[in-house]
């Protein structure tokens, strides 16, 4: 039951692409944020697949770090979004327009 690496890659790329598109078209900061996380997880998938493919541990180790980083990013991000929601009452990036985008 060994799956070819291309399957994993395809899923990973698809996830990544969905994430990118989500970031680009969605306007809700939280959803954008989730899309970014999805991109990171897509990468994780790819890394693990490669790691398995090369029978090397590097990729899996990298995934750990990515997870940590993602968590830290989420912590900061949610805090920020919360503050913004309290100050402005919205999390839609369109409405955050004191400065030009």
């Amino acid at each position, binding site marked *: 039951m060994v799956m070819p690496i291309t399957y994993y*890659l395809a899923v990973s790329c698809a996830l990544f692409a969905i994430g990118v598109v989500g970031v680009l078209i969605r306007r809700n900061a939280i959803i954008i944020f989730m899309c970014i996380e999805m991109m*990171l997880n*897509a990468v994780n998938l790819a890394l693990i697949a490669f790691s398995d493919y090369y029978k090397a541990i*590097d990729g899996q180790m990298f995934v750990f770090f990515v997870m940590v*980083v993602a968590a830290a*990013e989420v912590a900061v991000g949610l805090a*920020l*979004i919360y503050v913004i929601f309290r100050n402005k009452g919205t999390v839609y990036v369109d409405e955050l327009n004191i400065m030009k985008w």
Partner: protein
Amino acid sequence: MSIDIPSISLTNIGPLITLSVAGLLLLLVDAFSIKGVKKGHFHQIALTAVLIALVQTVWLWDRQGADFSRMIYVDNFSFYFYVVFLIGTGISVALSIRYMEEYHKSCGEYYALMLFAAVGMMLLAAGGNLVTIFLGVEVLSIPIYILSGMFREEAKSNEAALKYLLLGGFSSAFLLFGMAMLYGGTGTMYLADLAKVIKSGGMNPLTYLGLGLLVVGFGFKVSLVPFHMWTPDVYEGAPTSITAFMSVGTKAAAFAAFLRVFMEVFPSVRMDWDMLLWVVAVATMTIGNVTALAQTNIKRMLAYSSIAHAGYILVGLVAGNQLGGIGILYYLLAYTLMNLGAFGVVILVSRKKDSCLNIYDYSGVGFQYPGMALLMSVFMFSLVGMPPTAGFIGKFYIFSAAVEAGYIWLVIIGVLNSLISVYYYLRIIVIMYMYPAEADLGPVPLNATMTTTLVFSAIAVLAIGIFPNSIYNLALSSVKILGI
């Protein structure tokens, strides 16, 4: 199960440890207000740490090799950047003091985060493995996300932080995907091994994809066109001291990694990326400069100009020769000094909170505060690239590198861009010296540390501009490591 315990020497990352420990200490001191440490004096801890780290770096100089199972390079290239980051951090810390007091935020975590960001920068410059590089990027970025949003009550600050976070995260994801692809294409994450594989004809669709995505990822961090959209907003909204810090720190760190990765891993496939970077460099310089022309907010102006500077620096990378490497290293040091100096004056002039950020608020500063105006002029002329300042020598190196490599047109576009930049940098000087003061500007609350720092920066800008030899030699011994 047997595990090879790598022999590691913590002294090799002494500066990083110092800064981290100091950062943790700051957090504790802040949270528990230990006796004998006044709340307002956190910056002293931070500055001390920076100094110690600087001494450590100097002491480490000329060590060679790698440590932590080759995850971290211990070489002059890293050390050079350590010095740049430490100078940048030190100056930024000094510039923050009054700014923080004004906001009644004499908070330890502010300085702690700065130190952590500096650690990230160092990690980025020293990374010998894609993992370390990615970690560096994030350890650098995450504190800066927070720092940009430090002023919780200010909508602008919030907005800047969120924008930076979203786009920063976005770019990290690209960078990461690129790294994954490189890994997938070659089966290794060590830069040295990657280079070997690629040199022996290991380029395949995955590695090409990885290469491209790396450019995107780094491009975001150093704000290359077309990945520059975040820069002006974030620079404008973030607290000025942080804008200063990130404008130099992030850029220098990302360029360090950019340079290391492209010079070490991809030199054998130069043909594949030099035209790409050529175009990006031209676009970056031009768009940065032209847009900067239209700005009236000085922070925005400096933001766009920083984009332009990224373009100049990229020229050095396109050149890709030894001189180019030296040019980039020198330029980043010069840029650190001059840009921080400029932001320092901006902080001084914006007397009350973030007022006086319009360039016309500088009317009459020239003769009311001759010292400050003189400093600003030095920094502006340096940013323009007038001799005998550091900015000139930096551009000189970079452009001469490109000439040497045969990119005459790139250089011509570069100098024409410098010309455009003359206009908006000069405008500040015009306004300072040639416009009448609209009203009495009132006292500028000077602070001994800040003043000393700014004077130091100005003198340094002139000194390394007039006597670039020592820096050249340092940079030379650093770039040699890259094998160019």
